[in-house]
């Protein structure tokens, strides 16, 4: 089966330099932040691929590049076999655009406060000149709200209900792929489970493919088929859910698992991980994780580990076995 999303050697560099005059006066070089560095992965149709990582891991940037909100600096993203950056056929681009939608993290900022829910939900269709009669009402019921809600404004809803509206909007253009950027991290636990269940139901009903971006391991474990772990813009490990959670290969993945608070670990005395995430503008040479890694050897300090396959797992570590 050919992948519905194919990401190859994706790199995104942001120029975070101070203005030119300040640089000249303070004698500082240009500051370049490598948010995403040579990331490659494939997402098969009708599956859930999760990207996990802490802040600065580049997970949100990858999501934005895939939906086309950010251009890649290098590398390529193919959706349904079309590379949006190089494709010239406007019809093809438009078709792919309609097939990929996004759900954002903050349900309070992702709905225009001045628009009625009906117009918000129908916008992806209206923007393409499609028919929108009854569309919002139908979708609202599909996501567990009532058709009458179409006349209301976003401020009349709670966080969980707003996220349902966002999901309805994402569904309105009948997409095949939805990129979910931390869709539940702004929600309370009891509401989070409602939204996660809804997303699972919709996936089955419409045969959707999710690219699920999150920092929350428990949520990722619940949703994902395949998980990619990111550290400082690099993909360090990729495995199926069961393989990753039962046998993490990369020391960073192991560290994440150990550090995550667990509800069944009352008064657990953890030996907390050492150090913090390094500055992405001047990342450590070699393997970016080596300053915090318990297994690091000389080779890790100089040579960047390539992705290699161990069983079904792909891992970027010299020491993994």
């Amino acid at each position: 089966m050919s992948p519905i999303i194919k990401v190859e050697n994706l790199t995104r560099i942001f120029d975070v330099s101070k203005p030119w005059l300040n640089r000249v006066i303070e004698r500082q070089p240009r500051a370049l932040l490598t948010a995403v560095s040579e990331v490659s992965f494939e997402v098969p149709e009708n599956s859930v691929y999760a990207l996990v990582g802490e802040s600065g891991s580049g997970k949100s940037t990858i999501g934005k590049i895939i939906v086309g909100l950010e251009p890649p600096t290098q590398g390529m993203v193919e959706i349904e076999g079309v590379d949006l950056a190089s494709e010239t056929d406007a019809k093809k681009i438009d078709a792919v655009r309609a097939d990929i939608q996004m759900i954002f993290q903050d349900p309070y900022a992702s709905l225009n406060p001045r628009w009625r829910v009906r117009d918000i939900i129908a916008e992806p269709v209206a923007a393409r000149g499609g028919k929108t009669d009854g569309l919002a009402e139908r979708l609202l019921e599909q996501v567990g709200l009532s058709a009458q809600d179409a006349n209301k404004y976003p401020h009349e809803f709670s966080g969980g209900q707003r996220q349902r509206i966002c999901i309805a909007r994402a569904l309105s253009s009948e997409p095949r792929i939805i990129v979910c950027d931390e869709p539940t991290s702004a929600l309370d636990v009891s509401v989070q489970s409602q939204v996660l269940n809804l997303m699972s139901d919709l996936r089955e009903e419409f045969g959707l493919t999710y690219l699920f971006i999150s920092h929350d391991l428990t949520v990722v474990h619940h949703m994902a088929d395949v998980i990619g772990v990111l550290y400082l813009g690099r993909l360090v490990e990729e495995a199926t859910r069961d393989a990753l959670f039962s046998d993490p290969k990369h020391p960073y993945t192991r560290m994440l698992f150990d550090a995550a608070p667990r509800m069944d670990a009352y008064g657990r005395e953890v030996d907390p991980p050492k150090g913090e995430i390094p500055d992405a503008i001047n990342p450590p040479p070699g393997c970016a994780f080596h300053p915090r890694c318990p297994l690091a050897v000389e080779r890790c300090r100089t040579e960047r580990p390539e992705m290699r396959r161990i069983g079904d797992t792909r891992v970027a570590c010299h020491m993994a076995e």
Partner: protein
Amino acid sequence: MTETRIETPAAPRPSRPRRVWESDFIWSFRHSPVAVVSFVVVLLMMLGALFAPLIAPHDPFNPATLNLMNGFTPPGEANQFTGEFFVLGTDDQGRDVFSTILFGMRISLFVGLSAVFLAMLIGVTVGLMAGYLGGWTETLIMRLADVQLTFPAILVAMLIFGIAKGITPPEHRDAMAIWVLILAIGLSDWVQFARVVRGATLVEKNKEYVQAARLIGRTPFSIMLRHILPNVLNPVLVIATISLALAIIAEATLSFLGVGAPPTKPSLGTLIRIGQEFMFSGEWWILFFPAATLLALALSINLLGDWLRDALNPRLR
């Protein structure tokens, strides 16, 4: 304190007028005596200006109805020659001060409102473009704004007025004067709008609803107009109100300096200029009443603007 924010209960939705009457905005208005008084004053003055031809007891601009014998009648007294009575007295040419004020307000308010509208149109447009498009568009617009801000607005207005006067043929000058005034004040006042709109746009454009619209494939023009503009209008409304007071004062200043409304079509500023000639000869009312009207008008509008700023500020709610 999001924890304690409450909104109208979801249960039965009250009727629309009821909802408007109960809304936070109207509630805050009803409970602010200053806002209510200012609003009534401004409303009365606007109605007075609008219906001046119907209300005014005399037509001060029809020379046929003027009687020089009525000149310098003090307020509240009958004229010693003609026995005619004028509430606020008359000026040197026997024009009824009350009527001239009504007609003067008409011109002042018309110039003020038009100038603010022009400034708003320019400021909001370029502010949105600067904030949303960024890059050299932003640099160009904002540097231009910075340069303009280094000159006092009244100087800019006088400069524009002077140029415009130079290029209009003399026979049209009086007729054009009002429009030139509007152009001069409007062009000197757009910077505030541009700055505020640009700031608000920078905040809004990073919100996720704008990203969602970009994702859908909306053009930048459509995003600015349909998504960002409605969300940056609150501060624009506040600035527009306060600018209105400033514009009316600017118009009065220009007219006072003799570069504004012509004496044949006097605004409040022109009336004050005429009046100050008689201030030291005992005919105080010719100056006092137009000046007091200008003060009351500008003050009320300003107070209304202050209240509006508080009422529209979500943090103070």
